[in-house]
């Protein structure tokens, strides 16, 4: 009997657990350890944040799904990893702290044969003073945050209806943030809602970002072939901002937020302030607070984890200048080199470097969008790790090691720009590969055939279809596995 422990039931961890359970016999154990009781389809939090959906529409309880599928569920936080075991454990094990109301605070240990770290990000609001729901800004990172954002937006709309001008600032709250696409989506959903409420003319909307130029999205932008011409996501995104009268402040690192005032620095080193009535700023991410120890009990966290707290896997982490970065630096198996039975997938793995060119301001402040590794790539990574584990359990050490590199993986990003069956809109973009490969695709690093973008009602339908499909898949309904990650 083999035991596989998965830490984290986000997109990658949940996907891995379902594939493991489907392919492994009942004599093998699949154990899920995750601090939340509910699964959240995070891309739809955008719609919760403008009041178009309830939290119940984007979340569901995990326990019934895991009970039905035969996955052992511990509502708990992973606190440490012991890949070599210790004097009491011959195998590797994890320590956990329960978060469920019945067992809150209790600690436990679970041995494993294989471990998947899919702990996702720690929302690092603390990196910027005054950022986040405990500070002066709102967030849409969780469904709970999005509910608060919707309530605050409702108050702003009421003030606008009363004739008061309002400035809404939406974007990222630190120079090293990722998920600019989510901030972009929220910007245009808010704009859409204000238009529907008939108060758009009294509102000033500002998109505040660490991107060097609009359309970067943390992936260095995209080039599209359209109607016989080569265009790019910069031009395309700028056009949307111009059309919807949304202002943009680029190349920014938010250093502090006070009540009604954002302090930010740009690449020119000048420190500026921006007053606001409503601000939704995404936080930077760091790895989950989890430590690693060897069999003697010595802390080996610095060997296993990067300084950012993300787990180091089979990537090339040698520091080198931007010009020398290569697609082959990116991991394929997501195995930890020293412990091949330990995997890190989704946001939990440490990327070897950014995808967008990192820059520093005149004063030395790093302003560099972090690479996105959410959604579709996350699911593929989870499935890849699961396939390797399944083969190694079935065939021993000779089992096939599967690979899926972000440099050989496409991603679809459907950025909602307003909801509604006939009034909705979205920017549907795909890129292949996610990490540019300049050897395979000289010039722009991506396939011009498979990298494209389009704005329109069809994009909204696709986004809504993905919402339905992925919640169906996550609930492990019949034939869920036929839906691609």
């Amino acid at each position, binding site marked *: 009997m083999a035991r596989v422990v998965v830490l984290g039931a986000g997109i990658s961890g949940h996907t891995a657990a379902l594939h493991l359970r489907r392919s492994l016999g009942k004599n093998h154990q699949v154990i899920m350890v995750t601090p939340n009781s509910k699964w959240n389809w995070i891309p739809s939090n955008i719609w919760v944040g403008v009041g178009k959906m309830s939290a119940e529409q984007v979340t569901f309880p995990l326990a019934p799904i895991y009970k039905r599928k035969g996955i052992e569920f511990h509502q708990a936080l992973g606190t440490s990893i012991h890949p070599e075991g210790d004097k009491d454990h011959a195998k590797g094990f994890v320590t956990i702290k329960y978060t469920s109301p019945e067992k809150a605070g209790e600690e436990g240990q679970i041995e494993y044969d294989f471990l998947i770290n899919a702990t996702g990000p720690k929302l690092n609001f603390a990196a910027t003073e005054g950022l986040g729901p405990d500070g002066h800004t709102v967030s849409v990172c969780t469904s709970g945050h999005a509910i608060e954002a919707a309530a605050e937006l409702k108050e702003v709309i009421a003030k606008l209806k009363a004739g008061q001008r309002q400035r809404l600032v939406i974007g990222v709250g630190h120079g090293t943030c990722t998920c600019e696409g989510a901030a972009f989506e929220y910007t245009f959903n808010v704009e859409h809602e204000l238009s529907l409420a008939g108060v758009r003319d009294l509102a000033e909307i500002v998109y505040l970002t660490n991107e060097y130029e609009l359309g970067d999205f943390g992936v260095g932008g995209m080039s599209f072939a359209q109607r016989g011409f080569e265009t790019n996501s910069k031009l395309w995104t700028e056009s949307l901002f111009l059309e919807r009268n949304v202002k*943009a*402040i680029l190349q920014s690192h938010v250093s502090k937020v006070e009540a009604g005032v954002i302090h930010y620095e740009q690449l020119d080193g*000048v420190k500026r302030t*921006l007053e606001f009535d409503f601000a939704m700023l995404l936080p930077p991410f760091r790895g989950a607070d989890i430590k690693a120890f060897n069999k003697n009990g010595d802390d080996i966290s610095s060997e296993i984890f990067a300084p950012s707290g993300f787990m180091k896997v089979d990537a090339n982490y040698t520091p080198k200048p931007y010009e020398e970065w290569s697609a082959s630096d990116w991991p394929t198996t997501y195995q930890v080199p020293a412990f091949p039975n330990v995997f890190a997938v989704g946001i939990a793995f440490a990327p070897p470097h950014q995808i967008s060119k990192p820059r520093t301001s005149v004063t030395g402040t790093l302003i560099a969008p972090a690479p996105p590794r959410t959604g579709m790539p996350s699911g*593929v990574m989870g499935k890849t790790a699961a396939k390797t584990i399944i083969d190694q359990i079935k065939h021993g050490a000779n089992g096939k090691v599967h690979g899926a*590199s972000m440099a*050989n993986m496409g991603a679809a990003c459907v950025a909602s720009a307003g909801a509604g069956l006939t009034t909705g809109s979205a920017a549907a973009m795909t890129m292949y*590969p996610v990490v540019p490969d300049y050897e395979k695709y000289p010039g722009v690093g991506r396939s011009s055939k*498979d990298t494209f973008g389009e704005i329109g*009602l069809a994009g909204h339908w696709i986004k809504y279809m993905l919402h339905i499909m992925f919640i169906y898949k996550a609930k492990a309904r019949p034939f869920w596995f036929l839906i691609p990650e």
Partner: protein
Amino acid sequence: MDNFADLSGAPRPIKKTLKMRKNPLFQFWRFINLNLRMVAMIFKGDH
């Protein structure tokens, strides 16, 4: 002082473009087309 990006060089969509972005029949065709292209893109790479 605010330092807004200069977007004046960006192309502004013409009325026909905006209309087509909301035309249900045209958008239904785009929906099919985009889905097929996305599926092709997914299966081309590691998935």
